[in-house]
């Protein structure tokens, strides 16, 4: 039942203080005064409590269990991060500079840590999410080429066909022409394919490494060299940074622009879809184009630098999703140098263990050592049993776990993309394998059972086709 249906005229859940200010007459011109109140719920405090408690109980979450969404890095979100963020909730972004020293310093520290981790020279913390970071990075690239007088000719952004959808979308928003690179047979960038597209018309090559198949682009140094030879920039989609910490850095591999997802690698919670935070680090030659303000170390501490005449401007108001930064900062303080390496080591160990275990029944696309995630290809399976990836995903829900990412990357049909993350124990992984074995058997013995799943969830399988065909956008009485 919606909160609107729980509403009763005249009921209320708030109380404002006794009002001791003299009341003036309202001087808003009559035609600009609201006539009908908005239909907001009229409920008591206990109604609010029960409604949202009930909704929360209908959600699966990382705190409930395994959430192996590929490319999403659903790792455990330490509780102390929340406590630390709560210390900064009441400061106004426009407070006088001398009253926000701690907040600015925290951003400064965080930036330095992230520059070190990414191997970049400068950074903006402003972008609110990964895709936002991509857009920012591409706008920086654009400004760079414009400044060099090359924007006219550099129209293209090369994006592998295995890339996240945000990559081409961001490139388009940044005004570039998107050219898709077909992956090679090994799931990696095909250097010949790259060569056919790579010339001075290319502004940027966007890659994530490891790529969305969980494979490390082993030719990355070569690719970087090729890109730089034609004057193009190399962009790193940081969604998959969780795999490589402590061993290599995007900057060291030759990437010029790196975005990070603080809400993935750095353990800030995903909040049902956001807020995230998508800082971008850049090499020195791109620093002048970053959005303002940039946090800078000064002699006496840190400051906000608005004086970047070549800056692309701003990509959102103020400084970004600051509370998310506090959580990421807390996490980095907690993990430290060896801890972050251990994160990647265990993330990759978990993925390979799971890959090996599942490969006994399911077909792993590109079944070799993977990084932090891998992809299962159910095309054959579906042909044989009639049970599709979607059905398997729904059936997993019945067994009390969340499903992996499905139907991505697009280059694998019936894909199931599994990222266990480092915070999951062998016990949990074994449990997942057990579930996948059960479903495998069910698909062969009773496919209809799987095709109608889920059964034990708060609601059965939903009709999203009709939902889009005859959309109901809002509650109406």
């Amino acid at each position, binding site marked *: 039942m919606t909160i609107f249906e729980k509403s009763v005229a005249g009921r209320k859940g*708030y109380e404002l203080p006794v009002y001791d*200010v003299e009341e*003036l007459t309202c001087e808003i011109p009559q035609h600009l005064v*609201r006539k009908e109140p*908005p*239909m907001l*719920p009229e409920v008591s*405090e206990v109604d*609010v*409590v029960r409604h*949202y*408690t009930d*909704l929360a109980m209908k*959600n699966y*979450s990382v705190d409930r269990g395994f959430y192996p969404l590929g490319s999403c890095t659903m790792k455990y979100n330490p509780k102390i991060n*929340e*406590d*630390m963020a709560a210390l900064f909730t*009441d400061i*106004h*972004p426009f407070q006088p500079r001398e009253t*926000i020293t*701690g*907040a600015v310093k925290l951003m400064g520290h965080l930036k330095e840590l992230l520059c070190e981790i990414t191997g970049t020279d400068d950074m903006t913390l402003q972008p*609110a*999410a990964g*895709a936002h970071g991509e857009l920012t990075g591409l706008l920086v690239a654009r400004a760079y080429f414009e400044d060099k007088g090359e924007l006219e000719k550099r129209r293209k952004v090369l994006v592998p066909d295995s890339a*996240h*959808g*945000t990559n081409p979308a961001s490139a388009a928003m940044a005004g*570039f022409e998107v050219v898709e690179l077909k992956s090679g047979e090994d799931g990696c960038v095909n250097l010949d394919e790259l060569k056919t597209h790579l010339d001075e018309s290319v502004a940027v090559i966007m890659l994530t490494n490891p790529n969305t198949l969980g494979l*490390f682009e082993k030719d*990355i140094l070569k690719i970087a060299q090729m890109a730089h030879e034609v004057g193009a920039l190399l962009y790193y989609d940081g969604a998959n940074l969780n795999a490589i910490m402590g*061993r290599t850095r995007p900057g060291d591999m030759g990437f010029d622009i790196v975005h990070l997802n603080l809400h993935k690698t750095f353990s800030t919670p*995903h*909040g*049902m*879809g*956001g*807020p995230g935070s998508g800082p971008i680090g850049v090499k020195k030659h791109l620093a002048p184009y970053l959005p303002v303000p940039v946090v800078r170390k000064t002699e006496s501490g840190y400051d906000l630098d608005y004086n970047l005449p070549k800056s692309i*401007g*701003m*990509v959102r*108001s103020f400084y970004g*999703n600051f509370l998310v930064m506090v959580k990421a900062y807390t996490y980095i303080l*907690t993990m*430290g140098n060896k801890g*972050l390496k251990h994160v990647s080591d265990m993330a990759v160990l978990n993925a*390979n263990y799971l890959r090996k275990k599942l490969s006994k029944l399911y077909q792993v696309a590109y079944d070799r050592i993977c990084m932090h995630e891998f992809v299962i290809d159910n095309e054959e399976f579906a042909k044989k049993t009639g049970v599709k990836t979607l059905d398997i995903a729904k059936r997993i829900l019945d067994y009390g776990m969340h*499903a992996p990412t499905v139907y991505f990357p697009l280059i694998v049909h019936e894909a199931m993309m599994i990222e266990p993350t480092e915070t999951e124990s062998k016990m949990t992984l074994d449990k997942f394998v057990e579930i996948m074995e059960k479903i495998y058997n069910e698909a062969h013995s009773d496919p209809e059972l799987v095709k109608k799943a889920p059964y034990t*969830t*708060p*609601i059965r399988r*939903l009709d*999203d086709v009709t939902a*889009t065909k005859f959309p*109901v*956008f*809002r*509650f109406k009485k």
Partner: protein
Amino acid sequence: MHRYIPHTEEEIKQMLQEIGVSSIDDLFVDVPKTIDGYNIPEGRDEFTVKKIVEGLAKENVHFEPTNVFLGAGVYYHYIPSVVRHMASNPNFVTAYTPYQAEVSQGTLQMLFEYQTMMCELTGMEVANSSMYDGASAFAESLLMATRITGKTKMLVAESINPEYRTVAKTYTKPQGIEIVEIKYDETGRIDLNILRSSLSEEIAAVAVAYPNFFGVIEDLKAVREVIPQNIVFIVVAEPVSLALLEAPGKFGADIVVGEGQSLGVTPNFGGPGIGFFTTLEKHVRKMPGRIIGETKDLEGKKGYVMILQTREQHIRREKATSNICSNQAYIALINAIYLSTMGPQGLKEVAWRSYNNAHVLAKMLEEKGFERIFKGEFFNEFVIRVPDNYREKWHNMVKEGILGPIPVDRVYKTLGPSALACATEVNTKESMKKLVEVMSK
């Protein structure tokens, strides 16, 4: 061994064996080893981490909300205790995008209800489930106007929040969109004459803020009357004010966007807040962002799912309406809880007291010689003329525990020494007196 990472030595051994490699390093053979660890400190325990971060927190100055007269897009309102309590449920906090609808009905229903509330406040037909913030929502509204009209010239009121306009320029430039800024008149509202004379066949959209950055209430009716129907009418609205002001939808707005921080969200040093985005059904396929819709399950039970995903980047890729993926869903939750708690009457009381306090404060300041610069009716903010040394005074007020009206002459240079004062329902008569006293010193 780390408290967040469960692997024991024994388990690592077993797992390596299962994989068929002899060491962790064997898993990284493809990776060029460019570093031997980071040049960052080693990890710390909770107790120590807390000390460090608490130390930083203490370096900031925290003001009593009653003593805050700074708004400019971020507002201190009273937030009922229940909001934080309900929003901190880990089943909201640690869930992700509702990719598996059957185990995400909490998220989905909440967002559907949030969308409904935003439609109600703005008087629009459709809302998405959030944008990053007011500024980026505004920027996206201009991109959307181009998608609707195929045109690339925008008339944007100069009285829209300066940061919003900066962000809009950043976003729109690559699309070849030209933004023409339309001056305000002596009322602080958009200059209708300039607007009228700036209109042409090339124009995609006209955008005003309601109330605008000066706190002045634009006459949406008058603006709409000036603009031809085929031009997209964009309104940047302050949501609390909409409890008192007629909904933009009633005046023929095509897109209403804004910042939702004032609906139960703490200031958070500017982020996270939330951008809201609403429009008409006829434009929905041009809309950016995630939308939740109602549907049924295979037993006919009502449920909620993501709809119209073919507009979005993960399906449409470079042809998507936007690249947005992660949004501010968690803040939408806070908005929804706040609005559920306050209801129509509560929100109206908040809006009225904010209005009234601002007007009482304006009178008090005027009595002390702080003239209001604009004659137009205002909501809860207003621009006053201040002495040349005001900026210094503004810093000095900190010692009195006051966060005073912010100087605005650096962004609106032609105004001369001026400041934007703000009041909400949390300010008291006493705190206003104190402000006036300190400012008059």
